């Protein structure tokens, strides 16, 4: 599942439009959560500031728990040196706590990376060209680190102003995100595809556990043996078939099953 977190509706609207049709699955405590009809994309509008973002992210992940292939994105506008530019954040500094957080930058998204500093007030002074400023990133990153690995979330920020007191209207914010929506959603697809890569041996252990009359610990041992067989390219199903033909399986009782598990182990390793 893809999770998108935006502080305000005008930032989220281009994402909602992109993944439309979406249903409003929760609207409570200032947090709106939309989910696409296929259940694969979520857009959450958190409200402005760290507290709102932390609350919204925690609520969303509790309501719709991420799985191994899930990734999360904080999409929004920020203050920076080059208005209109889109960046992927490589370092998140919380200016209140001093804490620094680092999402992994592993995939070739073509985006320039930049540090972002999260502040609790609007920046009115001039800023340098190597730092972005916003009001939610550190909260988003903090919550994500509790739910997923640093390779599974990203902060995608479009510079809206140079922090010199200029007014950014809702329409301007929507336009800034909209202008980059193709790159943002393409980046999300890259993360999604990469996370889908993380595969593990997938099989139903239950029928085999029944064959060996497994206890919980025997089931764990059986799983380890089957994982080894898969890793070593050994045909464990054929081995079980042979043991069935020899009337060694199914086991008549747990004691018998334990003995057969030992036999299965021996044959798996040494034949």
């Amino acid at each position, binding site marked *: 599942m893809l999770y998108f977190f935006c502080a305000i509706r005008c930032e989220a609207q281009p994402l909602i439009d992109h993944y439309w049709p979406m249903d409003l699955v929760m609207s409570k405590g200032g947090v709106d959560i939309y989910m696409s009809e296929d259940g694969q994309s979520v857009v959450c509008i958190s409200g402005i500031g760290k507290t709102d973002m932390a609350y919204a992210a925690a609520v969303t992940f509790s309501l719709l728990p991420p799985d191994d292939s899930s990734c999360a994105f904080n999409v929004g506008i920020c203050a920076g040196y080059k208005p209109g530019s889109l960046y992927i954040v*490589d*370092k998140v500094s919380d200016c209140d706590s001093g804490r*620094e*957080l*680092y999402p*992994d*930058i*592993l*995939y*070739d998204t073509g985006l320039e*990376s930049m*540090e972002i500093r999260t502040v609790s007030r609007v920046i009115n002074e001039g800023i340098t060209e190597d730092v972005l400023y916003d009001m939610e990133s550190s909260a988003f990153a903090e919550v994500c*680190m509790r739910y*997923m*690995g*640093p*390779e599974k979330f990203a902060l995608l920020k479009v510079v809206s102003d140079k922090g010199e007191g200029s007014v950014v209207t809702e329409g301007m914010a929507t336009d800034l995100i909209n202008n980059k929506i193709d790159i943002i959603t393409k980046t999300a*697809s*890259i993360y*999604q*595809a*990469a996370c*889908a*890569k*993380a*595969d*593990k*041996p997938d099989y139903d252990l239950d029928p085999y556990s029944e064959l060996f009359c497994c206890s919980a610990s025997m089931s764990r*041992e059986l799983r*380890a*043996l089957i*994982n*080894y067989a*898969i*890793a*070593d*390219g050994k045909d464990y199903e054929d081995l079980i078939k042979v043991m069935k033909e020899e009337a060694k399986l199914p086991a008549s009782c747990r004691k018998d099953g334990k003995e057969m598990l030992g036999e299965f*182990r021996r044959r*798996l*390793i040494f034949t």
Partner: protein
Amino acid sequence: MSSADVSFLRNFDRIYIEKDAVDYPLTSKILEHFKSAKLTYIRHYKDIFNRSRQSFEFQSHSRKIILAVNRGKLVYEGAPVCHNYGNDRFFYTSTVLNCPYDCEYCFLKGRYSTANIVIFVNVEDYIAKASELGECYLSVSFDTDLPAMDHITAISSVWAELAQEHPEITIEIRTKSAPKSFIALPNLVYAFTLSPQEIIDRFEHGTAGLEARLRSLRLALSKGCKVRVCVDPIIYIDNWKELYGRMIDRLIAECDVDKINDYGIGAFRISSEYIKAIRRAEAYSAAVQFPFENRDGYCEYPYELTKAMVDYVRDRIREVADDGKIFCQY
């Protein structure tokens, strides 16, 4: 987009640097090698290296270097499971954490949940600390493959200098690479880990091939260096005996084995604390998914199998070396 379409950024495209590490000479030297790398300044290496929920599997596609200053312990006493090669006072030290190679069975995947590599740039502090140890045996390529990083760091030569100045300290530099430069000293041991090419191809990704390792070993012997051959870990696969037998045939045929100082032999074993993380990182590796037995906190092959493998290799080595030169796991 399918998973096959995902392209990862190249290794070491980004270097994280502790602010305190910026002014060290080794930092400048390393950065010379990575002129196009993006630099990210950090406060403490653990903010990156020790993050929770990291994925070795993902990070191994795009590793990063972290340059740091080690403010903690610099030298450790060796673990009981490690060979001490007859030395009572056995220590190890780690100027680098993690390895550029990707051996599927490596304990580092259990010790660290990241593929990123930390290089401690305050090598002078390590040297100063080691100088105080007195007579001892010091392994300096322990949490990494130091020679494999030498084209970037040249740290092996710094340890060689220490060996030159402190004859009471025996330094071991262990590698699966194929170094080309050596310094011949009586208290500097170059330890080559040898594996059959089939094991290298299957489990020791990125390491030097057997041919290159043997060539490097011959060069070290020709320079008069003290050389150790490690057939450790022996990895079990169906035709292990044939593969390790052929490898030892090559060692005997191609190298001046009389000049080899000693041998270390051991079957694969690993702390049971690490095995879960390694299996998670290497879901399809027969080397780590093997159903090991847990003996005294270490995952090992069944005793008979361990014995058969170690005995076989020892017996083959005995053809060319006295027992006094052979150090075995048991």
